[in-house]
């Protein structure tokens, strides 16, 4: 603070000594003319014009800052910024627009807090300037606060009618461009709409062209990107942001010669252009080309050592490449230089938390598990990771090279930070670079998360990314992962549900050519789920229509840098549109019959049929009311006996009314219509309750088994089945169910104890030892019994010393424990 005051004092005195009296303002005509020159790419002319005018005009100084910065002439830019700030300090700036320029100057001098303060001041001067909100919002975007930036841009749009400035640097169109960027930064919808508004207000807005280009490149819509580049460069062939994006376009299209020429051209304009390389790095990062991203970020820093955002991105990229030490070191420097970057802060905090992780290696993985659950998870994670990779490598006839880092996070927000640098991510797992990260079972409420299928899904990404040199489009790698997940285990992955049928009915499914945007800019969480399911189905369709080998061939073709259209033509012999048409036909054949069965029948709404959720039982106010409802329902059912919801509702209501046996046929019918709808309150759930209450054990086992196959995330079902089978003296079958529970809920001590008991019964002593070891690690209440059980299993497996150690530990807790005493004597006497 003292330093800032000193700087300001120095500026103001220096300025006062130079000027002595109120400054002259440049004529509006001049400023407008200069802006036009800049818009048209006549930068030299613009600079000459400005220099011929008064230096004490804040707008002149601001434009000079922009012009000199554009060419990387940092010292000059700083000098103009200081002069501009000096005008403010000496009280010579009066209007909102003018004071806003001083804020901009403070920003350029990296006086962030002062810039913000001056923007606030400018915003309090009426009439307020739209332009200041644009600069202000851009400051927040620069400082990683897209949420705040959004609010500021919106204020700017509101201020449109208030401003009466005769000259302003930016109009409302620029505010819309900023808004679009702010929305994108928060992964929120409305990006394209805001851009459209900008272009409607100003069809020649170059920043809008640039942003459009960026979005098209991100979506790999090369034609569209090219169109926007051409349009923009036609207006201003020296507009640097567009030239940078053109460079990126050439790079990612594999036009390396053109790329290198363009790069040289840009560096001729601005040898210190860090933005070029940071943009290349960001796009490489986005395309999972992490090694290249890191190189680009390094180059950005070489060109501009103050490009702190690039430094932070470099640190994060290195972490994703498994270069933990160097990544951390770079992030620490980034934090010291720029503490505003939340990605840096979050990632450094995450790295600190790694001190509490246990690390171990398997043939293909370097695994990190949190110390509180490492013992419990280790046997299952290492087995499944190796098995899934082996299976997928064989299937796709491709071996990945080197080891991958595999991390499981008991805190979902840590996983989100690891993946995105920010909390709040909705995903369960992610693969990037050499890292596979996911939630651990304890990160999610019980019954919501099948970690086994998520792991398999992620390892499918490892193989498809490796096979395609990281060039596989998002929809395709996700589609293959969804497909592989379903094939990994019975009931694993996602299946057809009411939501997807509804989306089909409403015709909101994306065409294949746009499916990438369903992942990268989904309109909602539901839209994202639908994109995933659709992608998986498309892959299954390709396998059934074109053979499994088509997938491998497509992956390899993508790896050669071919576009989606080129890959489809080369491997499938058809265009994207044609394949999409074929797929839609299959979808129609499957879904059309279901649409009517899943619609709300006449005189009903789905809300009425699904009170509080699918099939939730209602307690009526009295028999009379429920009977009336039943009559109405029965009448409706007679008109639509194939309606899923009517059958479910009737079944549920009959059960509530105590008419269990009558309920069963309706529930079975609902199951027949949509067997994959297996959430709580589904026909499975209601039938389970009926059979439990009526003591029909065989049927209970049957429906529980069906439910488990349809939805293996409800661990309590597997527990019930195991218990029932165990009672029927079927320990082998019982054990199978508990084994499967481990992929859902491996942190319950009782499950491991029960499975250990079953293994002992089956004389599978090694497995019993494993289970009891895990049981013990979960700090069960009855430590003596836990040690004893493990001692028993070790004894049976022939490990006498291990048995002795644990029986002593058991008796240490409970010296009079009869069973443990017997085992101790057995050990000492043999």
């Amino acid at each position: 603070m003292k330093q800032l005051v000193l700087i300001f004092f120095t500026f103001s005195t220096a300025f006062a000594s130079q000027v002595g009296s109120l400054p002259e303002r440049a004529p509006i005509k001049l400023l407008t003319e200069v802006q036009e020159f800049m818009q048209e790419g006549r930068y030299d002319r613009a600079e000459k014009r400005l220099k011929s005018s008064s230096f004490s005009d804040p707008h002149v100084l601001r434009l000079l800052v922009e012009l000199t910065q554009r060419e990387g002439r940092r010292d000059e830019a700083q000098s103009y910024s200081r002069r501009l700030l000096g005008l403010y300090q000496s009280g010579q700036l009066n209007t909102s627009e003018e004071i806003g320029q001083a804020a901009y100057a403070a920003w350029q001098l990296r006086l962030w807090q002062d810039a913000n303060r001056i923007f606030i001041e400018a915003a309090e001067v009426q009439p307020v300037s739209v332009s200041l909100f644009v600069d202000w919002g851009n400051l927040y975007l620069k400082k990683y606060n897209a949420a705040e930036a959004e609010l500021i841009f919106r204020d700017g749009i509101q201020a449109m009618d208030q401003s009466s400035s005769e000259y302003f640097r930016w109009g409302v169109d620029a505010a819309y461009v900023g808004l679009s960027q702010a929305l994108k930064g928060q992964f929120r919808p409305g990006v394209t709409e805001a851009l459209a508004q900008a272009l409607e207000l100003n069809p020649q807005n170059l920043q809008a062209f640039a942003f459009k280009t960026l979005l098209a490149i991100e979506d790999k819509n090369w034609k569209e990107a090219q169109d926007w580049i051409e349009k923009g460069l036609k207006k201003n062939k020296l507009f640097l942001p567009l030239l940078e994006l053109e460079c990126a376009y050439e790079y990612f299209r594999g036009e390396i010669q053109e790329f290198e020429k363009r790069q040289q051209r840009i560096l001729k304009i601005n040898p210190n252009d860090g933005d070029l390389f940071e943009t290349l790095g960001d796009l490489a990062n986005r395309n999972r080309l992490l090694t290249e991203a890191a190189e680009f970020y390094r180059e950005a820093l070489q060109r501009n050592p103050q490009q702190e955002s690039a430094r932070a991105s470099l640190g994060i990229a290195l972490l994703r490449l498994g270069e933990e030490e160097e990544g951390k070191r770079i992030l620490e420097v980034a934090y010291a230089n720029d503490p505003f970057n939340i990605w840096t802060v979050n990632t450094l905090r995450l790295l600190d938390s790694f001190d509490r992780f246990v690390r171990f290696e398997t043939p293909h993985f370097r695994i990190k598990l949190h110390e509180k659950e490492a013992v419990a998870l280790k046997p299952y994670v290492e087995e499944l990771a190796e098995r899934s990779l082996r299976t997928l490598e064989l299937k796709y006839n491709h071996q990945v090279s080197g080891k991958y880092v595999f991390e499981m996070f008991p805190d979902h927000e840590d996983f989100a930070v690891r993946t995105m640098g920010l909390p709040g991510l909705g995903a369960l797992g992610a693969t990037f670079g050499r890292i596979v990260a996911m939630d651990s079972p304890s990160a999610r409420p019980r019954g919501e998360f099948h970690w086994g299928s998520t792991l398999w899904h992620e390892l499918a990404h490892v193989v498809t990314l490796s096979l395609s040199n990281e060039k596989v489009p998002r929809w395709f790698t996700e589609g293959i992962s969804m497909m592989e997940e379903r094939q990994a285990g019975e009931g694993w992955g996602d299946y057809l549900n009411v939501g997807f049928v509804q989306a089909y009915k409403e015709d909101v499914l994306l065409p294949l050519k746009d499916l990438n945007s369903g992942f990268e800019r989904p309109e909602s969480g539901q839209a994202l789920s639908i994109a995933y399911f659709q992608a998986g189905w498309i892959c299954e369709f390709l396998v059934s229509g074109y053979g499994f080998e088509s997938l491998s061939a497509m992956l390899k073709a993508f790896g050669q840098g071919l576009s989606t259209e080129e890959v489809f033509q080369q491997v499938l012999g058809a265009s994207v549109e044609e394949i999409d048409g074929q797929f839609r036909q299959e979808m129609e054949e499957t879904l059309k019959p279901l649409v009517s069965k899943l619609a709300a029948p006449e005189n009903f709404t789905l809300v009425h049929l699904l009170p509080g959720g699918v099939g939730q039982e209602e307690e009526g106010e009295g028999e009379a009311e429920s009977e009336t409802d039943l009559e109405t329902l029965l009448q409706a059912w007679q008109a639509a006996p194939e309606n899923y919801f009517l059958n479910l509702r009737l079944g549920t209501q009959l059960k509530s009314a105590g008419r269990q046996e009558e309920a069963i046929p309706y529930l079975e019918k609902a199951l027949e219509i949509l067997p994959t709808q297996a959430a709580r309150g589904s026909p499975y759930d209601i039938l389970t309750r009926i059979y439990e209450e009526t003591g029909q054990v065989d049927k209970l086992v049957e429906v529980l088994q069906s439910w488990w196959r349809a939805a293996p995330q409800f661990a309590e079902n597997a527990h019930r089945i195991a218990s029932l089978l165990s009672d029927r003296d079927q320990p082998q079958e019982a054990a199978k169910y508990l084994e499967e529970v481990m992929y859902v809920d491996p942190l319950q001590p009782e499950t491991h104890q029960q499975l250990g008991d079953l293994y002992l019964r089956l004389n599978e002593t090694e497995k019993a030892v494993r289970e009891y070891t895990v049981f013990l690690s979960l700090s069960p209440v009855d430590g003596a019994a836990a040690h004893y059980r493990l001692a028993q299993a070790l004894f049976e497996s022939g490990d006498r010393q291990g048995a002795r150690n644990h029986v002593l530990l058991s008796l240490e807790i409970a010296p009079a424990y009869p069973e443990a005493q017997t085992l101790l004597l057995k050990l000492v006497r043999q």
Partner: protein
Amino acid sequence: MRIGSFSLFSFFFLLTSVAAPQGLAQGETVCIIITGLGGMPEYEENFLSWGLATEAHFQDELESVVYRLDGREKKKTDILQLFEQISSSPPPQELWLFLIGHATHDNRNYKFNISGPDLTDQEIQKFFDGLGETRTYLVAATSSSGTLASQLGQKNRVIVTATKSATERQPPLFMSFFLEALTSEEADTDKNAKVSLLEAFLFSHQKVAAWFEEKGRIQTEHSTLQDNGQVLLEKKTILETHPGNQGTLLASTAYLSRATDQPYRTREARELASRGVELEREIEDLKFRKNQMPENEYYRALEELLVKLAILNESIAEMEGEL
């Protein structure tokens, strides 16, 4: 002590309206269960059912003299009268007091919520102080109960609270797990076929924590145990680092299960059993010294004693015809 006619009337009224009125004899176990106001039907139901379950356990399993007072109907005067009655009777061997309900703390006093004026910590303290050498066990399964541990803890008393401080104000789950412990093999960690107050506390303490973790919620209650005015067991880990301490705790010999020990048939078995008790004491002493010994030496000595005990128990079983 002279009993006035009004008091006499109240006494009879009390006898007809509580669950198990019995005359007190010296050496008996007395259990007082007071359930408080629920406020909401869900809590009321819980408090009442927990109170009834505790009553049933103490009556059927422990054959204690049980007084259950429903704080929705009973007033403080009724409770104080019962306290007075017990204080003025021959002192019981053990006295258990269960408070099940809501409570508050106004920075001065703990107040157990019942109909009318609340029962305060000072009133409970006065009652306890009047019991002399009677082993007294308080289970305060209420919110804001933490201060009772330091306030009431002293020699011959064990104070169990469902919360660690006055600021833990959510209705606790503690009692539901405590009741589960009473009949749980899992809770019987020393495998002597009996569940002690210490074991029930540790079981409940752990189960409450596991419940919150499973639900993904911040834990809003942390139970504590103060034993003989000296030990405050807020964390189970204290026991893990001091395994030898448990036998010296009063709470470890306050049993909530009926003793299943049958008298030995043979004199030799009785002598051996007596030797067994000595051996167990030696084991506890050794455990107490664990941190002062090299690990190898400790486990060698422990094994020696455990083998002796095991052989001894085996011999007893043979003598008693159990093998």
